[in-house]
Structures are given as structure tokens and as C-alpha cells.
């Protein structure tokens, strides 16, 4: 039997009731709408999509911070319903985007990093300091910062502290939500290198959420593209970046600005407006912005088509024949 994935969602849906205004009724907003995603052990899965597509809600569900309305989350093949919050936190830890707001400014670095040990009552408090120093060493910070406060550190150093805090419990999975987008380019490369080293040293599994496709391509083994609560394309990174299928993925890839001075700014042909998730378009939710829209797109929802591990949810790829015709 194959080893179960470190983290898996099965048809997860998360619906919020959104108020329409004073004295008006509430409407459902499907932030995540039937997502099945596997994160195999030891791999990096990239999750990309525009703001408002449900990436962060999905991350919250995986972290156990948000209960899905429907569907299951499996940790190593076991249903999350059998775990409590603490068990989940032992296995899965987050690294957030903004190291300026994700660290408590009134605590020292030492107490920030050792907090998980305290909460989970791991070992003897006298050993905590040793563990903190060990962690500081792993993330490349000098011992002397242990008694500093976050305000005394630079953005890159703070992100290292956030990484140390996430790793001190030795979790299996780390969910990195835009880990480098608040950082300068030279610091970004240091953090990416660090994440990669830690992955090999500690055998970690990452879910990397980012809108920077160059970063995702550099780090990820598998990539999932999310649009309006659905995963519209998922494949091995090589396959997805070499031969993207969904028109949305292509548009995303086209908008990546590589530092090539001979090319101009690409025209993505995407309309400006990201649809309102409270009132999603009929049929395929991408059809109003799609350059390859065909009549069926506005009426019927496409169903996922899987071919050699490459999932696409688009009417152009629903059957083998259409796939050939579209290429």
C-alpha cells in the first residue's frame, strides 16, 4: 500500500455567511469550494492564485484554525476530526507573510521561540533554553539575539525567528503563507535557501502559498492553481510550467516579469475585474475573463480531467479528444 500523504483534503468546502448590509439578509460565500489536495511527505506543494481566491482560507483549514463546512482533512491518512487543536499544532505549523505583525513586540525572542514548548508542556523548562539556542543556530541567528525584542531586528532576522518558532516542535508539515513577499530581494534569497536547507535536514513537507510564480517554480515539486475557491489545475511543477493547460494558468505565467530587458510588459488579456465571490459567474467561474471561452463555458461547470497526474478543470480539456483539439 502506498504511504498516505502527510496532509490531504478531501472535497473540502468552507462557506461563510456574509451580511449584505444593515437589515438585509445574509448570503453564502464559498471561499473554498470542494478542494481535494494531497501534500505528499517530503515534498513542496505550491499553491498559487490571486487574492480572494481562497488560498488563505484553505491554509487556515489545514492548520485547524477554521472548521470546514463540509469535507475532510486527513493527517497521515487519519481524519482530523479525531485530533484536537493541540495535536494538529504539533504536526503542522505556519510561517506567515509579515514578520512585523506575526511576532509579539512585547516578548523577547527567547520567549517567542519557546512558547510552543510551554504550551505543549514539552520536557523540563530548564531544557527550553538549550532548545531555543539549538533552533537559533539552525536558522542562522547568533545566540545573542535571544534576549532582544522583535523591534530590534531586521525583516529577514524576524522571518528567521518565525521559522525557528514554527520548527521548534519539529512539525511534519510547515505551511508557508507568502513567506518572502514582505522582504527585500537579497533577503528573500537567503530565506528561500534556508527553507530549502531545512527541508533536507529535517525532512519537512511544505505547502508554499505565494503569488510569486518564480519563487514557486524554484521551490515546488507540485503546483496547484486556485481560482475562486476551486483548484483549476494541478500537476508536477515541470509539467505545469512547461505545458500549462488552463487558460488561467497561462495568463498567470504570462504575467511573470522575468528580468529580461528585451521584453516588454506582457498583455495578459485578462479583464480587470476579479469576480465577486458572493455572486460567482455561472458555469465555469473563469469564463468572463477567459480568452478561449466557448459557448458551453457560461452554462455548465467543467469537471476535472486527469491525465498522467495532470489535473485540469476546463471545458477545453474535459475529454481526451478535446484535449488534443485544444493543443
Amino acid at each position: 500500500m502506498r504511504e498516505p500523504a502527510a496532509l490531504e483534503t478531501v472535497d473540502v468546502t468552507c462557506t461563510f455567511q456574509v451580511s449584505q448590509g444593515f437589515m438585509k439578509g445574509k448570503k453564502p460565500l464559498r471561499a473554498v469550494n470542494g478542494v481535494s489536495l494531497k501534500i505528499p511527505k517530503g515534498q513542496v506543494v505550491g499553491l498559487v492564485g490571486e487574492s480572494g481566491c481562497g488560498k488563505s482560507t484553505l491554509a487556515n483549514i489545514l492548520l485547524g484554525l477554521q472548521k470546514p463546512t463540509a469535507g475532510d482533512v486527513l493527517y497521515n491518512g487519519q481524519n482530523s476530526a479525531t485530533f484536537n487543536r493541540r495535536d494538529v499544532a504539533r504536526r503542522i505549523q505556519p510561517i506567515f507573510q509579515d514578520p512585523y505583525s506575526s511576532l509579539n513586540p512585547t516578548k523577547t525572542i527567547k520567549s517567542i521561540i519557546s512558547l510552543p514548548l510551554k504550551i505543549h508542556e514539552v520536557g523540563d523548562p530548564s531544557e527550553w533554553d538549550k532548545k531555543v539556542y539549538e533552533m537559533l543556530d539552525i536558522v542562522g541567528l547568533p545566540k545573542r539575539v535571544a534576549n532582544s525584542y522583535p523591534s530590534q531586528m531586521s525583516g529577514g532576522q524576524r522571518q528567521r525567528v518565525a521559522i525557528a518558532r514554527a520548527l521548534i516542535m519539529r512539525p511534519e508539515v510547515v505551511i508557508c503563507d507568502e513567506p518572502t513577499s514582505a522582504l527585500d530581494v537579497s533577503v528573500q534569497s537567503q530565506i528561500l535557501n534556508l527553507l530549502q536547507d531545512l527541508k533536507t535536514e529535517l525532512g519537512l513537507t511544505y505547502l508554499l502559498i505565494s503569488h510569486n510564480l518564480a519563487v514557486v517554480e524554484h521551490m515546488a515539486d507540485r503546483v496547484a492553481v486556485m481560482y475562486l475557491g476551486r483548484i483549476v489545475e494541478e500537476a508536477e511543477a515541470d509539467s505545469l510550467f512547461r505545458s500549462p493547460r488552463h487558460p488561467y494558468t497561462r495568463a498567470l505565467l504570462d504575467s511573470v516579469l522575468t528580468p529580461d530587458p528585451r521584453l516588454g510588459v506582457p498583455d495578459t488579456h485578462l479583464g480587470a475585474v476579479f469576480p465577486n465571490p458572493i455572486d460567482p459567474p455561472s458555469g465555469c467561474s473563469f469564463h468572463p475573463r477567459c480568452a478561449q471561452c466557448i459557448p458551453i463555458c457560461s452554462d455548465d461547470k467543467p469537471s476535472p480531467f486527469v491525465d498522467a497526474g495532470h489535473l485540469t478543470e476546463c471545458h477545453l480539456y474535459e475529454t481526451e479528444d478535446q484535449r488534443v483539439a485544444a493543443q
Partner: protein
Amino acid sequence: MTKPETILDVQNLKVDIPVSAGVLHPVRGISFSVGRRETLCIVGESGCGKSLTSFSLMGLLPKKAIRTTDKMDFLGTDLSTLSEREMAEIRGGSMAMIFQEPMTSLNPSYTIGNQLEEVYMRHIERNRKAARDRAVYLLEKVGITAARSRLNQYPHQLSGGLRQRVMIAMALMCGPDLIIADEPTTALDVTIQAQILHLLAELQEEFDMGMILITHDLGIVARVADKVQVMYAGKTVEEGPCIDVFDNPLHPYTQGLLRCIPVPGKTRRGQRLGSVPGIVPNLVGDLQGCMFRNRCEYAGAACETMGHQATQAGGGHAFTCTRTLDEARRGLRAVEAA
């Protein structure tokens, strides 16, 4: 090709800010010029002084900051001699700015229409109907549908991309000659970023404007810039035509930055990225020599006392380093004078 008419010419701009520990020198003598239809990109990391440079052009520096300059010529007017009242005439009129955060730079308690019309009525004429027509025209120009009904909306009713488009429309209200865009797309999605940059380039062509684009994203710089200026610790370390700087970066800092970014198709997965070790120096007090020396792989004794003379590499491409042009091209250390 004829050289474009110069709109802005700045020589030796310095900004000093007195702080409790001494005097902070965030901008330490930079020079640049922008022509019509020309895009100058100022690149650098946080704290290199790029935003203060743009604020000092607009006269928006904090009160205690001291600006000195040899020359600050904007269409024949010397900006450094203008009073606050005269500067207010230019600001938003013939020189306009697009800020980084479209969320915070629009006033949440006024409608979009109100804020757009105010600019026009303040600078051109107190005619609300003309102002409204101009606002609708520009909102359509920047790709906003149903422009007339948008005028009655408040900023919170618009998405980030739309707000940035409104900011661009606002900058264009009085037909400026120069646009200063400070990280105009940092807060936006990649797809929207491409659209906004596309739009800016189109509008620049159509309205005959010069543009100063301030960013830390080398991808953007490569795609839109005519000229590039790389700043480090308040100084220009390298400048030149975009193609030359990207093809033959000469300063160790520029070279380091270009090695830091993953490039699809060039960097392999899992491969280590290059990095620029160390951190940005403190700019308080008396600063001597090259400020990059403690992070530089080529640093030598000469770097501690070097002056600010730029080495020319031809075609306007220049860099400030102790290495000679030949040494920089071949990636060698500077030969120490005996």
C-alpha cells in the same frame, strides 16, 4: 534618434535628517535626469533612500529633513528655490505622484469623484462640470467600466487594482509632464501588476510624459525602464541604459541582486540562490568610503577611503567602485596600489 527634451535635471541631491544620535544621511548626493517619454527606474532595497528621493522632488519631506542640491531644474524652474505655496502649484499639477498603497492614499470619507474633481478644481479651474467630465474621461482611459457611476463610490467599495487605477487617473487629472510612481504595483496581484504597468506605458506615450518609477522588483525594471539607477545606502552605485545594466552589471551590488532572484528557465529547482550577505549599514554620522564594502566580495583597503567618482563604461553606463572597468568586466579584485 534625437535626444528627448529633458524635463527634470537633478544634480547632487542630498537629504539630511537630524536624529538623536547625530545626523542621518539617507540620500547622499545623487544626480539624474528624465526626458519626455522616458522612464527612469530607481532600484534598491528598503532603506536605500529611493522613496526619500521621490519625496524630496515633490517637496513632501518630513519637516525636520534638510534638502540640499546643486541643481533641481524642472521645465526651466528651479524647484529648490520655490516657496511651499509655489511648490503646491506644481505638485499634482505638472508633477504628479502615484503612491505605493492605494488602500491608504485615498481618503476613505470622500467619494472617488470628489477626490478626482478636487485636483482639477484646485489646479485648473473651479468648474465642477468640466472637472467631472475630465474625471470620467480619465477613468475610462485607465480602463474602469461604468465610470460615471463609479464617481459616487467610496474607496472601500473598490478592489485594490481599481483603486490603483483611480490613483493613476488622479495623477493624470491636470495633464502632468512628469509622473513619479513609488512602488505602484507592490500591493497588487501579478496579473493586475502586468495590467497596471501596461497601462502606465500606454498613457506615458499618449500624454507625452516622463516617468520616474521607484521599485525593488528587478523584473519590473527590466521590462519598463529606459534608464536604470541602482541605489545603495543613499548613493548611486550603478546607472545606465536598461539593457547595458542587465546584460553587463558592473557593480558588485547589482551583480549580487541579479543573482538573488529565481528566474524561470535559468535557475534550476533546488539550486541555491545567490545572496548578498550582511545588512544595510547605519547611515548616521560621518560616512567615509564605499558603504557596500562590508558586504562586498571584492572589498579591499582602497574601499575605505574611495571617493564618489563614477567609472564610465560607455553609452552612459557608469558605476562607482574601486575596481577599474576592465577588472569589473572580468570579475577581478582591484589591484592594490603599492
